[in-house]
């Protein structure tokens, strides 16, 4: 029993650190949707700063710790958020993961470099290497107390517990009892709705990153006596605490916190009682990663069909349809030049370096399959490389010929890949990345510890092969052979991409459900991609090992795999030839930097890490960015953008969309021309607008404008009183999504105290119009006026602050917040909330209940009720009656009518006309992205309705 108590008590020490790190992970994840692999590096940097302040500059411990935790760490978080994370939130998951992996190596290097520079400048800093037994905040050495027989604690442990408990309480108070906490939780719950409520999610993101970094800093300071100054250990610690973040499902701070504590205890119990593990070397070492892997499998349920990231829209392929020569000529010439260089200009040293780059390029091309084609982030590639090379070495030591050993090694790697893929079939995104990372560590710590496989520290010799007269032990011959192999693999991968299997892979990547419906087996396709990629990594691995002429189990660790991925993605992961560039850069760049730029070993690492910053701008890597930017500049130069793009633009992964893009462009241009032409042109342009669905036409402009010919309800704008000035006006708005335009020039006007009902069939663009009006979606053309002011460029936050409120489709509530909290976000005044409860006793009775548990009608009431207390200038409601019982719909309309009475301008979008016609003042029909009719309710005719819905032209 005493043992158990000890295990639990001391397990709580690492548990507390896990909890602090995991809480930071969850906060930053919910703020900007990215898993921060560099969180441990932040903690390390803070530990280093604390050490230098305390031991180097001689500051007392407590002020040094306070400065780090409350000023420096939050400052770092703020700066990184502004520079990087905020922009990364808008790019694909792969780029996000890789950018923070870059930081993972760059931050410690930056810290060490700073220490080096300071030391050179004569500052009294201490070297950061070989430092053990570092003091923490408490006395050093730690004072220990014996509580009972065999149960003791020391001052460092006590400090960790007390501080963590204080942080838990402080976080609870912050999140539950402050306005900032309420907003943070709202942003976690529904980021875009937060913006619609006029709360800047960007600012909240900054705050969340500052808190997260502060927590990392705290963990760093507290962990200094335990972990010392090893960036590596801090990062491992972080990976373990990721388990706790998984327990909190990346959303719940309390769950993650508790998970962290539990994890520490569990780990200790396993270490204490796992005598069964003694026979398997490395099993105890691997316990945290077993827990991480198990946790991911058990706890990740939501992203079942994921493994893909829809945000990863492919870049425009400017060479689509170009001749083979234009597409491949440059690359082929490069390959020939490289091959010739080996026997002409390259010195032996450079031959070796280039051969090394080509060998690693083979490994890098495996990322093109799994991450480029499959959009799955695999961090286990290094394990495939090691596995294949060890097996090949083992066989060659038994006298197998090189080619046979290579083949078997490749197959073993492919098999390992299939094994790793099994969890991949149910995980996706960051969960998959973490799971593969955990498996890579497991392979390092258990599989590659098998003595018969690794042959101790000596490893296996892999002599370079000799085929008849070709002796590859000459670097030049190896180099040329690798050029040929690399070219063959690149061609093979390109052929694969264009084959039915490749199209199936792309289909699975972009829409698994749709792919399944088209008869593509998602399961088999993913398994195939992983297997193929692992096999390729193994193939490259054996060749790389034969370049080195030896493989040892520690040559390519899980951490190496992380760095590899970052290098490849920085160059571009979608095409095999980019991976070759990445391999060559990886081999050559450090040498060039050392020869011509700096002797410091830190600077190249920092530069490499900063590639993450570049990814925020060019998420597809520098190789892909070059042609895109070049094409863009050329297009700008010719001045014939529209025409150029109309025939040249095609989407890399969906040639079918080319038509849509070109059309959109044409329409936009045409729309612009029509507008520029002024009212005189309109009459001429309008009939053209009805020519058909091709969209290559001008925009019709019927609507409540003078001279449009349509009947205009209410007072005319010319009367120019404040009352009559439109509260919200959309003028010739075009807008759409990546795939093409949805709105082809929409004009809508809403005035104070007026209800404008917008009707139209599915897909007419009603929701899109709402989003543009609320600022959620930028208008492609045309303008949006709020109270007469041009607000076209305003985002949702500024629109909302100007009084334009959107009640989005579905329910405009925060389901995880209570009713009281939902109301408090809009009504800060408690009296106003009481008034709401007086009016809606049902809400009052259940004010402490999570809003998500209310019925649909109650949720809609909750969304609209607070508006009565503080009527907005404009309310845009997207299908407020959707899915509600008729009686409830009546109530909702009554509420809306009441709002109109209070002076609010209402823009209501409905699919079903019946109810809304009873309350609307003006009605507009939207079909195919245009207002086909607009007029007072009284003039609405059944025929027009039918026309609006069926899209029949009169």
């Amino acid at each position: 029993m005493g043992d158990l108590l000890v295990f639990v008590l001391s397990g709580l020490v690492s548990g507390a650190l896990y909890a602090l790190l995991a809480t930071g992970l969850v906060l930053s994840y919910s703020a900007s949707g990215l898993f921060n692999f560099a969180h441990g590096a932040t903690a390390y940097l803070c530990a280093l700063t604390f050490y230098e302040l305390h031991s180097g500059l001689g500051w007392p411990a407590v002020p040094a710790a306070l400065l780090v935790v409350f000023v420096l760490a939050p400052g770092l978080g703020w700066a990184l958020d502004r520079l990087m994370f905020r922009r990364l939130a808008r790019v694909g998951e792969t780029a996000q993961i890789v950018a923070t992996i870059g930081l993972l190596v760059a931050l410690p290097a930056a810290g060490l470099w700073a220490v080096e520079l300071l030391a050179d400048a004569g500052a009294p800093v201490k070297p950061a290497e070989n430092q053990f037994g570092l003091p923490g905040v408490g006395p050093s050495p730690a004072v220990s107390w014996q509580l009972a027989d065999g149960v003791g604690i020391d001052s460092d442990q006590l400090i960790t517990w007390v501080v963590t408990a204080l942080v838990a309480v402080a976080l609870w108070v912050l999140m539950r009892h402050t306005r900032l906490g309420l907003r943070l939780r709202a942003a976690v719950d529904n980021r875009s709705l937060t913006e619609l409520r006029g709360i800047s999610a960007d600012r909240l993101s900054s705050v969340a990153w500052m808190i997260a970094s502060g927590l990392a800093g705290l963990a760093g300071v507290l962990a200094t006596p335990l972990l010392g100054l090893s960036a590596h250990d801090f990062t491992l610690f972080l990976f373990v605490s990721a388990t706790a973040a998984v327990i909190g499902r990346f959303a719940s701070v309390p769950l993650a916190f508790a998970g962290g504590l539990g994890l520490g205890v569990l780990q200790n119990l396993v270490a204490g009682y796992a005598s069964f593990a003694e026979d398997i070397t490395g099993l105890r070492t691997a316990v945290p990663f077993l827990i991480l892997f198990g946790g991911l499998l058990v706890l990740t349920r939501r992203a079942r069909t994921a493994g893909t990231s829809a945000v990863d829209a492919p870049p425009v392929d400017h060479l689509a349809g170009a001749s083979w020569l234009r597409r491949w000529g440059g690359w082929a010439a490069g390959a020939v030049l490289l091959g010739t260089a080996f026997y002409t200009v390259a010195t032996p040293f450079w031959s070796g370096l280039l051969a090394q780059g080509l060998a690693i390029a083979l490994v890098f091309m495996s990322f093109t399959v799994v991450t480029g084609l499959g959009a799955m982030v695999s961090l286990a590639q290094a394990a495939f490389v090691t596995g294949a090379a060890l097996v090949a070495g083992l066989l060659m030591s038994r006298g197998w010929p090189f080619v046979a050993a290579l083949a078997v090694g490749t197959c073993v790697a492919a098999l390992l890949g299939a094994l790793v893929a099994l969890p991949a079939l149910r995980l996706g995104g960051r969960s998959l990345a973490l799971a593969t990372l955990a498996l890579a560590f497991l392979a390092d710590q258990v599989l590659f510890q098998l003595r018969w496989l690794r042959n101790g520290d000596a490893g296996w010799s892999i002599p370079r092969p000799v085929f008849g007269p070709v002796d590859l032990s000459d670097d030049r011959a190896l180099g040329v052979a690798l050029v040929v192999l690399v070219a063959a693999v690149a061609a093979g991968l390109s052929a694969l991409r264009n084959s039915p299997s490749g199209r199936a892979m792309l289909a699975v990547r972009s829409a698994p459900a749709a792919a399944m419906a088209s008869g593509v087996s998602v399961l088999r396709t993913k398994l195939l991609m992983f297997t193929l990629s692992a096999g390729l990594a193994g193939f490259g691995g054996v060749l790389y090992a034969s370049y080195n002429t030896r493989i040892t189990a520690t040559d390519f660790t899980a951490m190496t795999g992380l760095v590899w991925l970052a290098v490849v993605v920085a160059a571009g992961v979608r095409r095999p030839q980019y991976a070759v560039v990445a391999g060559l850069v990886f081999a050559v760049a450090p040498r060039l930097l050392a020869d011509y730029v700096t002797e410091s070993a830190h600077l190249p690492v920092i530069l490499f890490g900063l590639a993450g910053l570049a990814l925020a701008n060019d998420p597809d890597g520098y190789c892909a960015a070059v042609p895109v930017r070049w094409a863009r500049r050329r297009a700008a130069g010719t001045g014939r953008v529209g025409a150029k793009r109309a025939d040249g633009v095609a989407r890399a992964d969906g040639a079918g969309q080319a038509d849509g893009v070109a059309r959109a462009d044409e329409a936009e241009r045409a729309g612009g021309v029509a507008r520029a032409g002024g009212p005189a042109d309109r009459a001429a342009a309008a009939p053209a607008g009805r020519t058909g669905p091709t969209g290559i036409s001008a925009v019709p402009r019927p609507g409540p404008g003078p001279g449009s010919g349509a009947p205009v309800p209410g007072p005319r704008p010319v009367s120019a009183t404040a009352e009559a000035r439109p509260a919200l006006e959309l003028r010739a708005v075009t807008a759409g999504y990546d795939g093409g335009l949805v709105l082809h020039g929409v004009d809508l006007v809403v005035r104070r105290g007026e209800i404008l009902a917008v009707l139209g069939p599915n897909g007419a663009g009603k929701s899109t119009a709402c989003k543009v009006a609320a600022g959620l979606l930028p208008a492609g053309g045309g303008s949006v006026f709020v109270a007469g002011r041009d607000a076209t460029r305003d985002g949702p936050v500024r629109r909302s602050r100007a009084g334009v409120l959107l009640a989005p489709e579905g329910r405009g509530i925060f389901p995880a917040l209570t009713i009281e909290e939902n109301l408090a976000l809009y009504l800060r005044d408690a009296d106003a909330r009481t008034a709401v409860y007086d009016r809606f006793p049902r809400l009052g009775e259940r004010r402490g209940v999570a809003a998500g548990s209310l019925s649909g009608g109650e949720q809609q009431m909750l969304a609209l009720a607070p508006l009565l207390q503080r009527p907005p200038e404009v309310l845009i409601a997207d299908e407020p009656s959707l899915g509600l019982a008729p009686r409830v719909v009546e109530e909702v309309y009554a509420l809306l009518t009441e709002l109109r009475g209070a002076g609010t301008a209402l823009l209501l979008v409905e699919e079903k006309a019946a109810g809304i016609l009873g309350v609307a003042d003006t009605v507009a029909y939207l079909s195919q992205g245009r207002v086909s009719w607009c007029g007072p309710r009284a003039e609405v005719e059944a025929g027009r309705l039918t026309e609006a819905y069926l899209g029949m032209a009169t």
Partner: protein
Amino acid sequence: MLRSIRTLAAAAAALALVSACNSAATPDKAPPGTSGDSRGVTADSIKVGGIVSMTTASGYSKKDTDLGAKARYLRANAEGGVNGRKIDYLGAEDDGQDPAKNMAAARKLVQQDKVFAVSPMSSVTFSGADFLEQEKVPTFGWGTLPSFCGPKYIYGFNGCLVPSPGGTLNQTWPEGIGQVLGGAAGKSVAVIANDSDAGKFGIRTFQQGFASAGFTVSYAKASVPATAVPSDWSAYVKEIMQSNGGKAPDAVVSVMQTPNNIGLFTALKRAGYKGLISDPTDYDPGLLAKEATKQALDGVHVLLQFEPFESDNPKMTQFKADIKAAAGGQDVPLNMHMVTGYMSADLFLSIARKAGKDLTVESFQAAAQGFSDTGTLVGDRAEPKGQKDSFGCGALVQLKDGAYKVSVPFKCHEPIPFS
């Protein structure tokens, strides 16, 4: 599909072309060694490079190895060089504990800088070993890796420290501890290592070494997680404390790195352990600078395989003077990495001196065969014995009241066969 077949055909053709190029090129290619005989050697200088792990992500650095080597070469040059040739020491390349960088550094030194020898080479990885061996580059360093055992051109400064079955085991540690305890007979010892293949191998060698010195090995486990330092040692301590038939063993021997040792030893002492504690890594006067390490390691006997800094051997006095001179006249805290660099350089210089005026790789290798001397800071040296076995010398120092004191003086012991 058709295109890929065409590509493959093209690839095959290209490969055939390569073979033609290659067979044409092979005669031109200077076979390594013939022209490399006196690579890096001029009438008045010998070019030497080094490879050392300096910057690392683990916080462990061997960078003072470079200073140690520099100190030794400075003195050699001050004394007129080796047979009239000055040593042109290029300084050490930093491999950052990265196998790829280790290889790149070896290639750069040989192909770009054209060094005659690499000394020192001290890292946790030595992937450049095969290349250096193939290019016939005499290389000297800390023989903790298998590459120092076997290859013809690679030498450990105090021998090969990785015992291989059929070779021998260095008995300094068991003999020394036996001496401190007043005889090994009837004494029990617990050996603990990290949970990895290397840890398991360490357990195997020391289990045999201690047993054949007369100890009862009551506990021998590679059980401590190898990556992150445990925050809690109670499970291990409890097991050790009861391993000797329910009692604590007479000695606890840790084959782990400093951060682990600090945790384990602190926990052992808190649990009331009064016996002897020993490890082979914590001989670093830098550890005395911090109260926490000073307390954690107090009383610990540390094994070292060179003459302790506390010794009054005149060679040690010379070493300290050389280091001070190389550090620009400043008193820098001494550590074992300096000895690694210094003695790697020293072994290279001694063999080069023996090779005589006509220095080539061949004459150097010939001089190494049958090289031996005695009474150095690492004891009695002999090649090629040192390419198979450790020189078998060592000492124990005890950290007591904030200072290291020699508890078992430096001495060479008879190794035992390892099975």
